[in-house]
């Protein structure tokens, strides 16, 4: 383990350090304000670290590959965590003073996510996923009163544990078949192993896909999503939607490429089925949903479906991998923007999550309303927003590898999706009968900042596209 490797691992080290500092601080004097500041600094440093480490891209041991692609996502996830942190500050204002643990958990779960992003080995994947997950369970259950958080947490715990086990068993089978645990080795040996004993390989990959499918909440492993989204405190929901899913998808992409999973047509078929099901069922589920958090949960199912289209077309560097980068980024930023507004408008009050609570928002708080509108339009894939360029990528990739069935699903799904996104926008634009009292929500700056990112990414994508291709 030489110095340059240490430098390569900079973000991870910084995060771990932050965690340690937090613990020490807590043991010295419990004060959530300080803890908050420490976490904030830690996250900012992590972003810096991610940029810093780019010059030292390399594989660190067999477990981790540090490359600019992963580092980009590391910084993105750190950014997401930072947003979560900012949102959390107000969110639990009424939660008494015992919040340091929350920040600690946030840091730890981000650490897990970063490991996951850079993992090149089943073990690191497992560690990252579990670290991220276990911390997340607690974050979900963190609010002290109300039944929903705990219910959400326990459901998430049991189900995701089950998913992890399935994943693990898949690994076990692959290991049994090839004797390799690293993606690369797997990819190298799988071919031969497949030749002599396809059963193990296929069953293994199948279980791996199912396990990961759960984390990505793809149909039919999606059913936990709405409940957890709804039960979890809104900032955590945002975190779950962005960091956890994003990191897992990055990991999946790595595995898919390095493990050369694209060479099994039957696997592709399975993915196609899952993708189509996710796009259609996800959108259909959201159609008449009145709880905005559940609605976004369902829409996230559909969006992961769109992403899967790109994954299916993926066979190495090229347009498809750019598509993954772009779509994921766009999706993360858009979701963050949306949740930034929802966290303010709905807070932790379950009743405020109903769409009806958003009626007339335009006239109550223009900024928040416009931010949410842009976010929703971006999710719907309307031009000038990041979401549109994302859709542009998806369709182009689909066309290039002529995945017509999937494209049909994309079109149908998006058509359905327009309806429920518009329902929210319409509610916001409703003019209330009585005179509107202005009711400014905090945190406009944050929402505005994210919205601007979404808008910029959609209306001037050239720089980012070049950057993404450079990764």
């Amino acid at each position: 383990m030489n110095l340059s490797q240490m430098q390569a691992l900079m973000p991870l080290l910084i995060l771990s350090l932050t965690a340690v500092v937090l613990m020490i601080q807590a043991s010295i004097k419990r004060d959530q304000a300080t803890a908050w500041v420490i976490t904030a600094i830690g996250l900012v440093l992590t972003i810096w670290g991610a940029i810093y480490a780019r010059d030292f891209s390399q594989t660190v041991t067999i477990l981790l590959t540090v490359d600019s692609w992963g580092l980009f996502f590391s910084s993105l996830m750190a950014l997401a965590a930072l947003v979560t942190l900012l949102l959390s500050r107000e969110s639990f204002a009424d939660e008494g003073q015992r919040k340091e643990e929350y920040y600690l958990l946030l840091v730890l779960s981000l650490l897990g996510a970063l490991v996951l992003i850079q993992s090149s080995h089943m073990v690191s994947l497992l560690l990252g996923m579990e670290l991220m997950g276990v911390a997340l369970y607690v974050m979900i259950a963190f609010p002290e009163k109300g039944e929903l958080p705990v219910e959400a947490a326990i459901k998430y715990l049991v189900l995701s544990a089950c998913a992890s086990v399935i994943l693990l068993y898949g690994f076990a089978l692959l290991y049994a078949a090839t004797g390799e645990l690293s993606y690369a080795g797997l990819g190298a040996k799988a071919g031969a192993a497949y030749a002599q004993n396809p059963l193990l390989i296929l069953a293994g990959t199948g279980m791996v896909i199912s396990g990961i499918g759960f984390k990505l909440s793809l149909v039919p492993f999606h059913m936990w999503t709405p409940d957890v989204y709804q039960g979890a405190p809104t900032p955590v929901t945002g975190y779950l939607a962005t960091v956890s899913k994003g990191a897992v998808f990055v990991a999946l992409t790595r595995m898919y490429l390095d493990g050369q999973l694209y060479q099994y047509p039957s696997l592709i078929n399975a993915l196609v089925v899952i993708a189509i099901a996710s796009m259609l069922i996800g959108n259909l589920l959201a159609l008449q949903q009145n709880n905005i958090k559940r609605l976004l949960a369902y829409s996230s199912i559909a969006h992961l479906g769109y992403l899967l289209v790109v994954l299916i077309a993926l066979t190495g560097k090229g347009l498809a991998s750019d598509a993954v980068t772009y779509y994921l980024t766009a999706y993360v930023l858009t979701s963050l923007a949306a949740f930034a507004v929802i966290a303010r408008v709905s807070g932790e009050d379950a009743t405020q999550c109903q769409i009806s609570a958003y009626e007339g928002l335009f006239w109550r708080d223009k900024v928040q309303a416009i931010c949410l509108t842009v976010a929703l339009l971006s999710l719907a894939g309307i031009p000038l927003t990041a979401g549109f360029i994302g859709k542009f990528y998806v369709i182009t990739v689909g066309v290039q590898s002529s995945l017509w069935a999937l494209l049909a699903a994309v079109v149908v799904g998006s058509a359905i999706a327009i309806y429920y996104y518009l329902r929210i926008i319409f509610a916001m634009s409703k003019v209330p009968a009585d005179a509107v009292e202005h009711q400014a929500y905090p945190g406009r700056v944050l929402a505005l900042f994210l919205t601007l990112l979404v808008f910029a990414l959609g209306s001037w994508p050239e720089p980012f596209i070049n950057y993404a291709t450079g990764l």
Partner: protein
Amino acid sequence: MDGLNIPLSHILLVSSLLFAVGMLGLMMRRNIIFILMSLEVMLNSTALAFVAAGAHWGQPDGQIVFMLILSVAAAEVAVGLGLVLQIQRRFKSLDMDNANRMQG
């Protein structure tokens, strides 16, 4: 120890049976405690598979993963039991079928 060299397939069979048992338990039991136990069973089935595979290839990796699994299981259960207390406090029962406040 050439007396007993059980072919990998047999062990995988056993482990998969264990896995199935755990999964059935997961689907059938309503009490959260038993659900967590079923999870343990499944985890162990995977552990067994890893160990066997490691032995098959004569690598240490299998056992290492086994230990990792143990720790993961510990973590999961620790959090799980913590939540069980909360559930008991807030739902006044451990029957997971009652925990369906969120629907639709």
